[in-house]
């Protein structure tokens, strides 16, 4: 694992900006689920939100990425640097997200999944292939381009999902308990893999988890969310 930054455009480190949440609240039918939350995540920093299941932390991430279902209400403001992204549709926010499940598209090969993430601005097919191959090499998965995702192990799939997100050149990374479904031995290795890439890409990263080990591994700031229903 040499330079993890090779498949990412270098200028990202120059333009990287922080993620700010300002009085962000998520509610459903007038019941507050989460918030108000105020926080700032600097580029390359991993900010952890801890809380039991049902405390609204996943809804908060969905609110930030813009994928919250329409019967939820979001108030407050979300900034990327100085620009508000609160009103933007999810696809224009450039917020990458990793979930508990890897959610690789089962109808596409590993390579096609990765290329699905690469921006269309890179038009040349060979260049796209090279980028995807390079990413796989760096992740210790050389030669996996044409593999069916279903034939990969859980840890391998998780890594491909990370690569897919990173290849899409996000400005922010949101992690929705991406380690919870992996075995204990794998979990630590995969955590290091993700954190290393976050640092290398200077991504402001928000992690939600209920696992204290995840939180302590980040070395960043931690806030605790209470269960609003209790």
């Amino acid at each position: 694992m040499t330079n993890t930054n090779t498949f990412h455009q270098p200028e990202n480190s120059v333009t990287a900006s922080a993620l700010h949440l300002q009085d962000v609240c998520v509610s459903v039918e007038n019941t507050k689920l989460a918030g108000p939350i105020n926080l700032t995540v600097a580029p390359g920093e991993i900010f952890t939100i801890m809380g039991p299941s049902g405390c609204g932390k996943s809804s908060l991430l969905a609110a930030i990425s813009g994928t919250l279902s329409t019967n939820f209400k979001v108030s407050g403001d979300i900034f990327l640097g100085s620009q508000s992204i609160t009103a933007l549709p999810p696809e224009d926010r450039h917020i990458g997200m990793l979930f508990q499940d890897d959610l690789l598209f089962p109808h596409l090969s590993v390579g096609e999944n990765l290329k699905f993430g690469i921006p269309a601005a890179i038009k040349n097919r060979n260049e796209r292939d090279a980028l995807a191959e390079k990413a796989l090499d760096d992740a210790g998965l050389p030669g996996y381009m044409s593999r069916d995702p279903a034939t990969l192990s859980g840890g391998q799939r998780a890594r491909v999902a990370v690569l897919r997100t990173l290849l899409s050149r996000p400005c922010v990374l949101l992690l929705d308990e991406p380690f919870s479904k992996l075995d204990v031995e794998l979990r630590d290795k995969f955590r290091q893999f993700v954190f290393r890439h976050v640092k290398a890409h200077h991504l402001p990263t928000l992690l939600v988890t209920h696992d204290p080990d995840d939180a302590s591994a980040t070395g960043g700031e931690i806030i605790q969310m209470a269960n609003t229903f209790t």
Partner: protein
Amino acid sequence: MKTFRALPSKVFRLRYMPAITLLVFLTPVGAGLISSVLPAFGYLPALGRSDFSGEAWGQLLHHPAIPASIFTTITTGFAATIISLGLALFFVAAWYGSPSYKKTRKMLAPVLAIPHSALAIGLAFLIAPSGWIVRAITPWATGWDRPPDVAIIHDPYGLTLILGLVIKETPYFLLMILAALDQTQAEKRLTVARTLGYKPISAWIKAVQPAIYKQIRLPIFAVLAFSLSVVDVSLILGPSAPPPLSVLVLRWFNDPDLSYRFMASAGAMLQLMIVIAAISLWFVVEVGVSRIFRSRSSMGKRHFFETEIKLASKAGINFLVMLFSGSLLVLVTWSFTWRWRFPDFLPSVWSFHSWQNNLHNLAESAGTTIAVGLAGSIIAIILVVACLENEKQRGKNAGSGALWLVYLPLMIPQVSFLFGVQVISIKANIDSSWVSVIWTHLLFVLPYVFLSLSDPYRSQDNRFFNLALTLGSTPSRAFWRIRLPLLLRPLLFAFAVGFAVSVAQYLPTLFAGGGRFATVTTEAVNLSASGNRRIVAVYALLQAILPLIVFAAAMRIPNFVFRNRQALKGS
């Protein structure tokens, strides 16, 4: 004696049920096909011919109407299928989860409940040169004092036929897509694609559609086969000189000159070959198209005509909803009309005459329709439940191969095997009887009942049943007291679907009933050419009302039964 008494219960043992069900509904299809093939080669002992020859084929292929007829069949069949599928896919891609999507979703059941032919008749009354739309804008916008002399209904290109099919097939595809969505993690796939920067429609097409498509492939084939071989809608809206092949074949079968039966059989086989070729062609094109789609999806383009598809699909659906509502309304209006002169927008004299004067016939055909519909759906429910319960108890699902078998009668053109069914039922001495009519309806009712019931039945939590057993209940008690009551809602819904399918059957009633069974559908279709709009409207409206009543009951009964059961209330 003992063995004899034990026999029925042995025969009806659960594990024989799938075999019995398949026998019940594949035997007539298979035997019907064979009995239809033989006359095509000159073999029909009933007419004193048992020498094999290719004469009928020569006659068929040299028939002057054949080339144009095949052309019309193929163009209208493909056009209706492609337009309906495209519209349904694009609408869901663009509007998934939005309020207008939810509104459309609610309309699906009633649209699907109404027979094709009833809607086709309504559509004809709506868009004909003397129809409601022209009346609405005449004379102030057109200056006409008589209907323009244009062939809108029976137009030579089959455009109206295509429209009539699209009104029914689009909601059918929508329903199939909705069912597939629940099994494909659509929501999550969309979220991933959106967070990777994909616009909604592009995200849908690249991340969700491939999974959906696999699930709806069989329904697509069924719709394609149906569109290529439909008879009743073609009779009402389709081109007439020459008509689509299915209508031509029916005409030959009905010709007083019995020697036409041979050419008709050859035509029926040609119809089958066209459908098989069309499905094969679709298969081949599909492979190519999905390759292109796949290679496109790794190019990273994040938008695909987002605004255009959004607007066009909404406009398309709204247009269909308007035509649908207009078609129903015009049927209601005509059925209560006494005098309605062109170009008045509304009748000048309203009356109940059309209903009153035909009360006897209406009651009789409605009675037949209801009796056949009830019998067919009840038998179908019993067979399907027995098969599904057998699956549950043996702990394994019938594979996808079984699904192909279920779809088989829906993919084989009706004209291609119903004549054979008629020949056999004459031999078996059950022709023109309740048995043959109900049995023939069952061939089409059973697949739809199976398709609506299998998912809820298979996904029912088995722990309830097992818990009942551990509490000391016998399996049959657990089945009657726990399993079935919990499935009341899907059972009644499947029953309503079966009933609606039965009501809509035109050709099966005609062939199996030997002309002696008049249902509201056969009456409506047969009268549709008569030009007496008041009478036709009454029958067509009745066609629509009967299944709607059953659907309404199927929705409401569970709400009443479960009125004090929070967990079982409908949404």
